[in-house]
Protein backbone atom coordinates (compact mmCIF):
# COMPACT_ATOMS: atom_id res chain seq x y z
CA UNK A 1 0.00 0.00 0.00
CA UNK A 2 0.99 3.60 -0.47
CA UNK A 3 1.10 5.93 2.54
CA UNK A 4 2.48 9.35 3.33
CA UNK A 5 5.37 8.86 5.74
CA UNK A 6 6.76 12.09 7.19
CA UNK A 7 5.43 13.93 4.19
CA UNK A 8 6.84 11.57 1.59
CA UNK A 9 5.23 8.84 -0.44
CA UNK A 10 6.20 5.41 0.89
CA UNK A 11 5.29 1.90 -0.14
CA UNK A 12 4.64 -0.55 2.68
CA UNK A 13 3.42 -4.17 2.73
CA UNK A 14 -0.37 -4.46 2.83
CA UNK A 15 -0.24 -5.87 6.37
CA UNK A 16 2.13 -3.17 7.67
CA UNK A 17 1.70 -1.77 11.16
CA UNK A 18 2.72 1.52 12.71
CA UNK A 19 5.85 -0.24 14.01
CA UNK A 20 6.85 -1.07 10.42
CA UNK A 21 6.52 2.57 9.43
CA UNK A 22 8.67 3.60 12.39
CA UNK A 23 11.36 1.15 11.27
CA UNK A 24 11.35 2.65 7.79
CA UNK A 25 12.43 6.02 9.13
CA UNK A 26 15.26 4.28 10.96
CA UNK A 27 14.36 4.90 14.53
CA UNK A 28 16.45 2.32 16.35
CA UNK A 29 15.71 0.76 19.74
CA UNK A 30 15.64 4.09 21.58
CA UNK A 31 12.02 5.07 21.77
CA UNK A 32 12.19 7.77 24.38
CA UNK A 33 11.54 11.06 22.68
CA UNK A 34 9.81 9.45 19.70
CA UNK A 35 6.10 9.71 18.98
CA UNK A 36 3.79 8.78 16.13
CA UNK A 37 0.61 10.28 14.78
CA UNK A 38 -1.55 8.62 12.13
CA UNK A 39 -3.86 11.08 10.40
CA UNK A 40 -3.19 13.51 13.21
CA UNK A 41 -4.05 11.17 16.07
CA UNK A 42 -1.37 9.90 18.44
CA UNK A 43 -0.72 6.17 18.45
CA UNK A 44 0.90 5.17 21.75
CA UNK A 45 4.12 3.20 21.46
CA UNK A 46 2.61 0.16 23.21
CA UNK A 47 0.14 -0.01 20.34
CA UNK A 48 2.57 0.38 17.44
CA UNK A 49 2.96 -3.36 16.76
CA UNK A 50 -0.76 -4.04 16.79
CA UNK A 51 -2.02 -0.99 14.91
CA UNK A 52 -2.49 -1.77 11.21
CA UNK A 53 -2.08 0.91 8.59
CA UNK A 54 -4.39 1.44 5.67
CA UNK A 55 -3.94 2.86 2.19
CA UNK A 56 -3.13 6.59 1.91
CA UNK A 57 -2.87 7.29 5.62
CA UNK A 58 -0.52 10.06 6.73
CA UNK A 59 2.01 8.91 9.30
CA UNK A 60 4.17 11.35 11.19
CA UNK A 61 7.12 10.03 13.17
CA UNK A 62 8.65 12.74 15.32
CA UNK A 63 11.37 13.01 17.89
CA UNK A 64 12.96 15.57 20.17
CA UNK A 65 15.11 18.21 18.57
CA UNK A 66 16.71 21.35 19.93
CA UNK A 67 14.25 24.17 20.22
CA UNK A 68 13.35 27.23 22.24
Amino acid at each position, binding site marked *: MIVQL*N*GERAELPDDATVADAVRV*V*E*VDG*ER*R*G*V*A*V*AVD*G*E*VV*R*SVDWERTPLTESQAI*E*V*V*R*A*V*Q*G*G
Partner: protein
Amino acid sequence: MANRQVAQKGEPTTERAGGFELGGRVWGSRLIVGTGGFRSLEGMERALVASGAEIVTVALRRVDPTAKGSALELIDRLGKFALPNTAGCYTARDAVRTARLAREAFETDWIKLEVIGDDRTLFPDAVELIDAAETLVDEGFVVLPYTNDDPILARRLEDAGCAAVMPLGSPIGSGMGIANPYNVQIIVERASVPVILDAGIGTASDAAMAMELGCEGVLLSSSVARAKDPELMAKAMREAVEAGYTARRAGRIPRKLHARASTPDEGLPDLR
Protein backbone atom coordinates in the same frame (compact mmCIF):
# COMPACT_ATOMS: atom_id res chain seq x y z
CA MET B 1 4.64 51.44 46.50
CA ALA B 2 4.03 49.40 43.43
CA ASN B 3 7.50 47.96 43.66
CA ARG B 4 6.99 46.97 47.26
CA GLN B 5 3.76 45.15 46.46
CA VAL B 6 5.46 43.29 43.68
CA ALA B 7 8.33 42.34 45.98
CA GLN B 8 5.98 40.85 48.54
CA LYS B 9 4.12 38.93 45.89
CA GLY B 10 7.28 37.15 44.78
CA GLU B 11 8.41 36.39 48.31
CA PRO B 12 9.02 32.71 48.89
CA THR B 13 6.80 31.32 51.61
CA THR B 14 7.16 27.63 52.20
CA GLU B 15 9.66 26.80 49.48
CA ARG B 16 13.37 26.83 50.12
CA ALA B 17 15.24 30.08 49.65
CA GLY B 18 15.46 31.05 46.03
CA GLY B 19 13.22 28.23 44.86
CA PHE B 20 9.85 28.70 43.28
CA GLU B 21 6.77 26.66 42.60
CA LEU B 22 5.71 25.94 39.08
CA GLY B 23 3.21 23.35 37.99
CA GLY B 24 3.00 21.89 41.48
CA ARG B 25 6.74 21.29 41.72
CA VAL B 26 9.43 23.31 43.47
CA TRP B 27 12.39 24.33 41.36
CA GLY B 28 15.72 25.65 42.55
CA SER B 29 16.54 27.69 39.46
CA ARG B 30 14.38 30.48 38.11
CA LEU B 31 16.10 30.35 34.76
CA ILE B 32 14.63 28.19 31.99
CA VAL B 33 16.79 27.73 28.92
CA GLY B 34 15.78 26.82 25.39
CA THR B 35 17.97 24.41 23.49
CA GLY B 36 17.45 25.92 20.02
CA GLY B 37 20.12 27.76 18.07
CA PHE B 38 23.26 26.28 19.59
CA ARG B 39 26.08 25.73 17.12
CA SER B 40 27.02 22.36 18.61
CA LEU B 41 25.77 19.86 21.18
CA GLU B 42 29.06 20.26 23.05
CA GLY B 43 28.57 24.01 23.27
CA MET B 44 24.99 23.47 24.39
CA GLU B 45 26.10 21.09 27.12
CA ARG B 46 28.59 23.57 28.55
CA ALA B 47 26.02 26.38 28.42
CA LEU B 48 23.27 24.32 30.05
CA VAL B 49 25.59 23.38 32.88
CA ALA B 50 26.74 26.98 33.34
CA SER B 51 23.14 28.24 33.34
CA GLY B 52 22.19 26.16 36.34
CA ALA B 53 18.77 25.74 34.71
CA GLU B 54 16.73 22.71 35.74
CA ILE B 55 14.12 23.07 33.02
CA VAL B 56 15.18 23.15 29.37
CA THR B 57 12.88 23.29 26.39
CA VAL B 58 12.87 20.98 23.40
CA ALA B 59 10.82 20.76 20.22
CA LEU B 60 9.37 17.91 18.18
CA ARG B 61 10.17 17.47 14.51
CA ARG B 62 10.04 14.71 11.93
CA VAL B 63 12.69 12.07 12.49
CA ASP B 64 15.81 12.88 10.50
CA PRO B 65 17.86 9.69 10.07
CA THR B 66 20.94 11.78 9.20
CA ALA B 67 20.82 13.82 12.43
CA LYS B 68 23.85 13.36 14.62
CA GLY B 69 23.60 13.18 18.40
CA SER B 70 20.51 13.42 20.50
CA ALA B 71 19.51 16.56 22.36
CA LEU B 72 17.23 14.54 24.62
CA GLU B 73 19.98 12.08 25.51
CA LEU B 74 22.15 15.01 26.55
CA ILE B 75 19.37 16.59 28.62
CA ASP B 76 18.68 13.27 30.34
CA ARG B 77 22.38 12.80 31.07
CA LEU B 78 22.60 16.26 32.63
CA GLY B 79 19.61 15.41 34.82
CA LYS B 80 17.52 18.29 33.50
CA PHE B 81 13.78 18.34 32.86
CA ALA B 82 12.90 18.42 29.16
CA LEU B 83 9.94 20.74 28.62
CA PRO B 84 8.46 20.16 25.17
CA ASN B 85 7.12 23.08 23.20
CA THR B 86 4.67 23.51 20.35
CA ALA B 87 6.95 25.82 18.38
CA GLY B 88 5.92 26.29 14.77
CA CYS B 89 2.20 25.77 15.36
CA TYR B 90 -0.19 28.34 13.88
CA THR B 91 -3.51 26.88 14.94
CA ALA B 92 -5.00 25.53 18.14
CA ARG B 93 -5.55 22.22 16.39
CA ASP B 94 -1.90 21.83 15.45
CA ALA B 95 -0.72 22.91 18.89
CA VAL B 96 -3.04 20.46 20.66
CA ARG B 97 -1.93 17.61 18.41
CA THR B 98 1.72 18.51 18.93
CA ALA B 99 1.19 18.61 22.70
CA ARG B 100 -0.37 15.14 22.60
CA LEU B 101 2.61 13.86 20.61
CA ALA B 102 4.94 15.48 23.12
CA ARG B 103 3.11 13.81 26.00
CA GLU B 104 3.67 10.48 24.32
CA ALA B 105 7.31 11.18 23.40
CA PHE B 106 8.45 12.63 26.72
CA GLU B 107 6.05 10.99 29.14
CA THR B 108 5.17 14.36 30.60
CA ASP B 109 2.00 16.41 30.84
CA TRP B 110 3.97 19.64 30.76
CA ILE B 111 3.81 21.71 27.63
CA LYS B 112 5.17 25.08 26.66
CA LEU B 113 2.29 26.25 24.51
CA GLU B 114 3.17 28.39 21.52
CA VAL B 115 0.61 29.30 18.88
CA ILE B 116 2.01 31.94 16.63
CA GLY B 117 0.25 34.32 14.28
CA ASP B 118 2.82 34.88 11.57
CA ASP B 119 6.40 34.01 10.81
CA ARG B 120 7.68 37.57 10.64
CA THR B 121 6.83 38.65 14.19
CA LEU B 122 6.27 35.23 15.77
CA PHE B 123 3.73 37.00 17.95
CA PRO B 124 1.17 34.71 19.57
CA ASP B 125 -2.26 34.37 18.00
CA ALA B 126 -4.40 35.22 21.03
CA VAL B 127 -7.60 33.55 19.82
CA GLU B 128 -5.95 30.27 18.89
CA LEU B 129 -3.81 30.37 22.05
CA ILE B 130 -6.81 30.58 24.36
CA ASP B 131 -8.57 27.84 22.43
CA ALA B 132 -5.55 25.52 22.66
CA ALA B 133 -4.97 26.32 26.34
CA GLU B 134 -8.56 25.45 27.27
CA THR B 135 -8.42 22.15 25.42
CA LEU B 136 -5.05 21.16 26.88
CA VAL B 137 -6.02 22.08 30.44
CA ASP B 138 -9.15 19.92 29.99
CA GLU B 139 -6.90 17.07 28.91
CA GLY B 140 -4.83 17.36 32.06
CA PHE B 141 -1.81 19.17 30.71
CA VAL B 142 0.32 21.56 32.75
CA VAL B 143 0.09 24.42 30.28
CA LEU B 144 2.77 27.11 30.16
CA PRO B 145 1.67 29.54 27.46
CA TYR B 146 3.93 31.91 25.58
CA THR B 147 1.79 35.02 25.34
CA ASN B 148 1.75 38.68 24.38
CA ASP B 149 2.54 41.30 27.02
CA ASP B 150 -1.20 41.85 27.30
CA PRO B 151 -2.56 41.85 30.87
CA ILE B 152 -6.07 40.90 29.76
CA LEU B 153 -4.89 37.96 27.69
CA ALA B 154 -2.69 36.88 30.59
CA ARG B 155 -5.72 36.90 32.87
CA ARG B 156 -7.74 34.92 30.36
CA LEU B 157 -4.99 32.31 30.18
CA GLU B 158 -4.89 32.11 33.95
CA ASP B 159 -8.69 31.76 34.04
CA ALA B 160 -8.38 28.94 31.52
CA GLY B 161 -6.30 27.05 34.06
CA CYS B 162 -2.76 27.62 32.81
CA ALA B 163 -0.03 26.87 35.35
CA ALA B 164 1.83 30.08 34.48
CA VAL B 165 1.72 32.93 32.03
CA MET B 166 4.78 33.66 29.94
CA PRO B 167 4.63 37.10 28.34
CA LEU B 168 7.17 38.09 25.75
CA GLY B 169 9.54 40.96 26.42
CA SER B 170 9.91 41.56 22.68
CA PRO B 171 9.84 39.31 19.60
CA ILE B 172 11.44 35.87 19.82
CA GLY B 173 15.13 36.01 19.01
CA SER B 174 15.12 39.79 18.63
CA GLY B 175 17.25 40.53 21.68
CA MET B 176 15.29 43.76 22.12
CA GLY B 177 14.78 43.21 25.83
CA ILE B 178 11.58 44.17 27.63
CA ALA B 179 9.85 46.63 25.33
CA ASN B 180 6.96 47.39 27.65
CA PRO B 181 7.99 46.91 31.28
CA TYR B 182 4.78 48.58 32.47
CA ASN B 183 2.63 45.89 30.91
CA VAL B 184 4.82 43.18 32.42
CA GLN B 185 4.46 44.85 35.80
CA ILE B 186 0.67 44.98 35.44
CA ILE B 187 0.60 41.30 34.47
CA VAL B 188 2.68 40.45 37.55
CA GLU B 189 0.49 42.51 39.89
CA ARG B 190 -2.67 40.78 38.76
CA ALA B 191 -1.43 37.24 38.30
CA SER B 192 -1.91 34.53 40.87
CA VAL B 193 0.13 32.04 38.85
CA PRO B 194 3.86 32.48 38.20
CA VAL B 195 4.78 34.97 35.49
CA ILE B 196 7.79 33.94 33.43
CA LEU B 197 9.32 36.40 31.02
CA ASP B 198 9.66 34.51 27.77
CA ALA B 199 11.33 35.84 24.63
CA GLY B 200 13.22 38.98 23.70
CA ILE B 201 16.00 38.77 26.27
CA GLY B 202 19.21 40.10 24.73
CA THR B 203 21.64 40.29 27.58
CA ALA B 204 21.98 39.91 31.33
CA SER B 205 20.45 43.26 32.28
CA ASP B 206 17.21 42.28 30.50
CA ALA B 207 16.97 39.12 32.61
CA ALA B 208 17.69 41.06 35.80
CA MET B 209 15.01 43.59 34.85
CA ALA B 210 12.43 40.85 34.35
CA MET B 211 13.06 39.64 37.87
CA GLU B 212 13.03 43.16 39.29
CA LEU B 213 9.64 43.70 37.65
CA GLY B 214 8.33 40.79 39.65
CA CYS B 215 8.57 37.85 37.28
CA GLU B 216 9.04 34.49 38.94
CA GLY B 217 11.43 33.31 36.27
CA VAL B 218 12.96 33.93 32.88
CA LEU B 219 12.90 31.73 29.80
CA LEU B 220 15.52 32.49 27.18
CA SER B 221 17.24 30.77 24.34
CA SER B 222 18.80 32.81 21.54
CA SER B 223 20.60 35.24 23.83
CA VAL B 224 22.68 32.36 25.14
CA ALA B 225 22.76 30.03 22.14
CA ARG B 226 23.75 32.74 19.69
CA ALA B 227 26.11 34.65 21.97
CA LYS B 228 29.75 34.73 20.97
CA ASP B 229 30.46 32.62 24.04
CA PRO B 230 27.29 30.76 25.01
CA GLU B 231 28.79 29.22 28.14
CA LEU B 232 29.86 32.60 29.49
CA MET B 233 26.52 34.20 28.62
CA ALA B 234 24.71 31.33 30.36
CA LYS B 235 26.70 32.12 33.49
CA ALA B 236 25.82 35.80 33.15
CA MET B 237 22.11 34.97 32.81
CA ARG B 238 22.19 32.75 35.86
CA GLU B 239 23.77 35.52 37.90
CA ALA B 240 21.45 38.17 36.45
CA VAL B 241 18.31 36.21 37.35
CA GLU B 242 19.62 35.67 40.87
CA ALA B 243 20.69 39.32 41.22
CA GLY B 244 17.39 40.65 39.89
CA TYR B 245 15.41 38.41 42.21
CA THR B 246 17.56 39.37 45.19
CA ALA B 247 17.25 43.07 44.36
CA ARG B 248 13.49 42.76 44.15
CA ARG B 249 13.30 41.21 47.58
CA ALA B 250 15.68 43.86 48.91
CA GLY B 251 13.27 46.58 47.75
CA ARG B 252 14.65 49.26 45.48
CA ILE B 253 14.57 52.93 46.36
CA PRO B 254 11.90 55.01 44.62
CA ARG B 255 12.89 56.97 41.54
CA LYS B 256 13.03 60.74 42.07
CA LEU B 257 13.74 63.61 39.76
CA HIS B 258 16.10 65.42 42.11
CA ALA B 259 19.11 64.41 44.12
CA ARG B 260 19.02 63.35 47.72
CA ALA B 261 22.41 63.55 49.40
CA SER B 262 23.65 60.39 50.97
CA THR B 263 26.13 62.33 53.15
CA PRO B 264 24.62 64.52 55.89
CA ASP B 265 25.18 68.30 55.83
CA GLU B 266 25.33 68.37 59.61
CA GLY B 267 28.86 68.88 60.93
CA LEU B 268 30.12 70.25 57.66
CA PRO B 269 33.26 72.28 58.48
CA ASP B 270 33.41 75.94 57.47
CA LEU B 271 36.56 76.22 55.40
CA ARG B 272 36.15 79.74 54.08
